[in-house]
């Protein structure tokens, strides 16, 4: 049985005419996998995660987390999940250690167990040296680490991360992604929401693409990309005789299609790395010089574009 | 100037939009003033006087009757058990205890004991105590006069000599005239003479107060208004701090708005708000409770301007210097309370020590309060309030200057 089973979850604010933020969403997350919910801003990701955190009551449907219903057994669900909110939610006038101790108590820990667990988490987030410093003195990256650490205190079975890398520097982002991968390697199940395709691609075992409250695609990276086909796109500009070159290229092996788009040539090819040298050869033979080449491998952006007609980050 | 006006309009609009706060700025002082006015604005209340008659004799009864007939007090007879509590609980302004033996002492011409119970801190209690002393004095005076008159007449009649010496000799025995019988006729003459005294007292209030001593409400109304205006600095100040926090203030400075325009705009907004509040409070006081603010409309206008100037420049300075809402609230509460106390808004400065009064008069609000009270009770005109206006303008200029210097965008 999957550790998280979402069954037809819906949320409508201010029924009957209000916004339908989440519309009949279903998916499952397996033990030990990283599952991403990918979608643009306003797609319904945060609402979905709020329902799975038992913060919002679903208008319809249910979800089971480790066998417990979010509707019927919220306290049991909360005992097995760790939620890392998008915005830093720790107490700035308390030290890192004080924060962890307090939140540990909120998670029901106490006594020696709490103490040792706090030590472990401080080690995990590499803040042992700064544990007695107040959070308001921390850098953004350090604050985020505490933010994540809090959610790990009670050894949850599933970790929810709601857009944890929005607006942070590349270095901190890298650290967070590596940290999540490390957790997964230790057996943690992760539900991760984001609107960054690259992250979803890199991290996840499986991805659910959500738009306007509905799940529009679900699967591994390879499965999703297959929706748009496996062709890469190559855009080329030449110094002269564009039309002629397009004709020559369209006859080449490995080139599925070649068209003129505005001032450049758009080619759909099977394997870009294999075809590119031949394109250059052909250009030389045709007496033209290639002035720029752009190769786009099939990715989730394309999938999203294909499915919705819009870019992922509009 | 246009830009300043735009800024002011925006601020006022935002204030209006925050319904709940707007409600409180406006409704609450009004409600309080109205409530207070209803309670106390009805001219002079007959102050309750607790009376414990432990004597019961005829003199005691006469005294009680005299007090019961008084316009200034309302007698409430109490037993021994609840006499003290009636006053400690505040249900009586003051109390009179007529101990046993009072009537006998009066009739014997000996000093008659009375116990007057009053809280020295209460003007009402003092007024009641004064009334008691007056009534008791009249009673005893009549009796004493009757006795003395009879004795003098008898002495003069007895030996026809200069009764002055005789009287003096008799007087040297101390008050040992207890054996003299005082006929009723004498008492009647004395009582009548005391009831229609040769010299009475005529209390004339100065100023335009139509010959009436103003009620407690009239006197306290300006003070309450000052208190509320100071307090409302909080809302305007919080708005500025919030703006600073969410970055819109900084953004304003990337437009062509000049720093001085921005500061002036802020202050103008606060000025408008406090002025509006004053208008409401004055209207209620004038229309419903006979607080004659409109005695001299021009002088009143000057005082209103003075108060709003001081309040808005102070509010501006606080909002410029303090960074958090909490700090602002704390400071406004403490400053407004301190200023109110020092300016005479809570208790009249007349009853404080000279040191306190001088410190108080360093503050512009003390001057403004004097001006307002003067307008209401003493018919102050423009010339009388000009000094107060001057002090207020000087202070405001200083505060404003400081505010501009300390104005921060982030």
């Amino acid at each position, binding site marked *: 049985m999957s550790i998280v089973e979402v069954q037809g979850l819906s949320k409508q604010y201010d029924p009957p005419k209000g916004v339908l933020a989440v519309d009949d969403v279903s998916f499952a997350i397996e033990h030990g996998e990283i599952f991403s919910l990918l979608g643009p801003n306003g797609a319904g990701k945060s609402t979905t995660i709020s329902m799975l955190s038992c913060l919002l009551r679903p208008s319809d449907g249910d979800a089971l987390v480790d066998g417990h219903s979010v509707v019927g057994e919220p306290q049991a669900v909360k005992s097995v999940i760790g939620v890392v909110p998008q915005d830093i939610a720790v107490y700035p*006038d308390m030290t890192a250690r004080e924060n962890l101790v*307090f939140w540990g108590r909120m998670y029901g820990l106490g006594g020696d167990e709490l103490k040792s667990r706090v030590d472990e988490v401080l080690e995990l987030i590499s803040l042992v040296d700064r544990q007695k410093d107040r959070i308001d003195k921390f850098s953004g990256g350090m604050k985020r680490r505490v933010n994540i650490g809090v959610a790990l205190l009670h050894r949850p079975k599933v970790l929810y991360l709601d857009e944890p890398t929005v607006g942070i520097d590349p270095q901190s982002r890298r650290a967070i992604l590596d940290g999540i991968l490390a957790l997964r390697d230790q057996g943690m199940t992760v539900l991760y929401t984001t609107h960054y395709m690259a992250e979803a691609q890199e991290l996840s075992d499986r991805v659910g693409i959500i738009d306007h409250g509905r799940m529009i695609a679900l699967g591994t990276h390879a499965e999703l990309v297959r929706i748009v086909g496996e062709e890469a796109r190559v855009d080329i500009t030449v110094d002269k005789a564009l039309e002629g070159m397009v004709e020559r290229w369209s006859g080449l092996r490995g080139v599925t299609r070649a068209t003129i788009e505005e001032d450049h040539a758009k080619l759909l090819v099977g394997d870009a790395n294999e075809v590119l040298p031949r394109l250059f050869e052909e250009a030389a033979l045709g007496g033209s010089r290639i002035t720029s080449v752009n190769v786009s491998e099939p990715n989730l952006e394309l999938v999203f574009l294909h499915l919705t007609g819009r870019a992922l980050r509009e | 100037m246009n830009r300043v006006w735009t800024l002011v309009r925006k601020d006022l609009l935002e204030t209006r939009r925050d319904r709940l706060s707007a409600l409180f700025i406006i409704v609450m002082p009004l409600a309080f003033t109205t409530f207070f006015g209803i309670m106390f604005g009805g001219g002079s209340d007959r102050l309750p006087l607790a009376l414990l008659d432990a004597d019961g004799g005829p003199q005691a009864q006469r005294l009680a009757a005299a007090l019961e007939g008084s316009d200034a007090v309302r007698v409430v007879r109490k037993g021994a058990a609840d006499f003290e509590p009636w006053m400690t609980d505040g249900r009586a302004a003051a109390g009179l205890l007529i101990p046993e033996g009072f009537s006998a002492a009066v009739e014997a011409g000996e000093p008659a004991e009375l116990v007057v119970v009053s809280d020295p801190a209460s003007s009402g209690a003092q007024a009641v105590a004064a009334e008691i002393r007056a009534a008791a004095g009249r009673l005893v005076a009549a009796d004493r006069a009757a006795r003395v008159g009879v004795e003098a007449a008898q002495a003069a009649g007895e030996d026809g000599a200069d009764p002055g010496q005789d009287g003096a000799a008799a007087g040297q025995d101390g008050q040992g005239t207890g054996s003299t019988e005082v006929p009723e006729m004498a008492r009647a003459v004395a009582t009548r003479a005391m009831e229609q005294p040769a010299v009475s007292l005529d209390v004339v209030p100065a100023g335009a107060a139509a010959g009436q001593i103003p009620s407690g409400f009239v006197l306290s109304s300006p003070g309450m208004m000052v208190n509320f205006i100071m307090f409302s600095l909080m809302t305007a100040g919080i708005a500025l701090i919030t703006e600073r926090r969410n970055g819109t203030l900084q953004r304003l400075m990337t437009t062509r708005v000049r720093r001085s325009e921005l500061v002036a705009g802020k202050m103008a907004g606060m000025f408008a708000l406090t002025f509006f509040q004053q208008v409401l409070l004055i209207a209620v006081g004038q229309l419903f409770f006979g607080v004659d603010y409109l005695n001299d409309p021009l002088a009143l206008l000057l005082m209103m301007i003075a108060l709003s100037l001081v309040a808005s420049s102070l509010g501006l300075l606080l909002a410029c210097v303090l960074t958090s809402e909490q700090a602002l*609230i704390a400071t406004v509460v403490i400053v407004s309370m301190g200023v109110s106390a020092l300016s005479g808004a809570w208790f009249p400065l007349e009853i404080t020590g000279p040191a306190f009064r001088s410190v108080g008069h360093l503050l512009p609000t003390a001057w403004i309060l004097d001006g307002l009270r003067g307008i209401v009770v003493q018919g102050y005109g423009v010339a009388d309030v000009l000094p107060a206006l001057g002090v207020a303008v000087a202070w405001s200029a200083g505060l404003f200057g400081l505010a501009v210097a300390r104005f921060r965008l982030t």
Partner: protein
Amino acid sequence: MSKILAIAWKDLRSTMRNVPALVMMLLAPLALAGLIGFAFGGGDSFQIAATKVVVTSADEWPPGSLPMHGPPALAGETFVAILTSEGLDDVLEVTEVAGAAAARRRVDDGDAAVAVIVPADFTAALYGTEGTTTAVELYVNPSQEFGTAITESVVTQALLDFNGARAAAAVAAAVAGDSAGHEAAVQAAAARFVQDGGVSTALALTDRAPHSPAGEQGEQGSTIGLVLAGMMIFFMFFGASNVARTILTEDHDGTLPRMLTTPTTASTILGGKFTSVFLTVTVQTIVLLVAGRLIFGIDWGGLEVVAVLTLVAAAVASGLGLLVIAVVRTPGQAGAIGAGVYLVLALLGGNFTGTATTSGTYAVVQGFTPNGPLLRAWDEAMRGGSLADVADDLLVPIAFAVVFFAVAVWRFRRRYA
């Protein structure tokens, strides 16, 4: 339970690190109490400054001769001498001026609170034929209530003696009838009346302040103590509000919703917050009581009374603070609205004016505020009252506290359901 305590302890610790809050909760009441103490010359008793009075006498010998031998001096001069005598120095500061117009001008200019104007026929009325009357004019500044009342009282007493002498003369005249000693009797009567000491020796007046039920030997209440008690209660409202407001700020900052993602129920969180508020104001009160003792030497009363009053005051303050938060939406609103409500309650309850009531109505109103009866209870405690003495003063505050808490709980339940 431990979660509730964890929340309470976190908030208390946060408050202890919050400088503006500490200033408001601890420094402000002490500073303001000190300021008011300074206003009244400090310490235990209440002292009022002497009232500035000007006196002028237009009194003159009436034309012709008096029907009886007149007094050695003009009655008006005697009257002025009484007012300017040293015995009245600590209540009245009297200056003699020339002319009624000048006297009135002094009052109009604010240089004096009262002008006592003795008319030209003062002596004539007193020593003339029966039926002539006149009046001494008190021209007063109506905004100086105390001064006016005190002066009126003094002048009335003085006039009683003059009128009493005249009454004695009238009696002597009536008794003596047409006898030969008529004139002598009349003069002697008038002289005797005054020589014997007048009205003031006929009465033995004792002035005292009301006793607490603790018995006739009950201690005098401490003025500064009452002022500090009033300030304490007022600033406890703010102390409660500060902590209660964290419910809103934590909601806004995300830590409250985060708490709801842990296995901690909303009831526990609310219970924790309520406990935080109550605990904080209780600690605040204890600190202020100790400070009041150390700095101003205030004797608050018996230990058990003080303990009960502390707890009741804490309950009222926390209930009200939580109620305000339960009703508003943003922390900014909480600040402004809360402050307004507390100010009104303080004014109505007499927190700033102590027990200086002006009439019975005000006392009734005071009795129906949550803080008014509390102040009275503190007054009783400082005068040595026992628990039984303050019990009935505590009924109204406790009732208020219960209602505040109930409504707050109801509203919070609805909001965080």
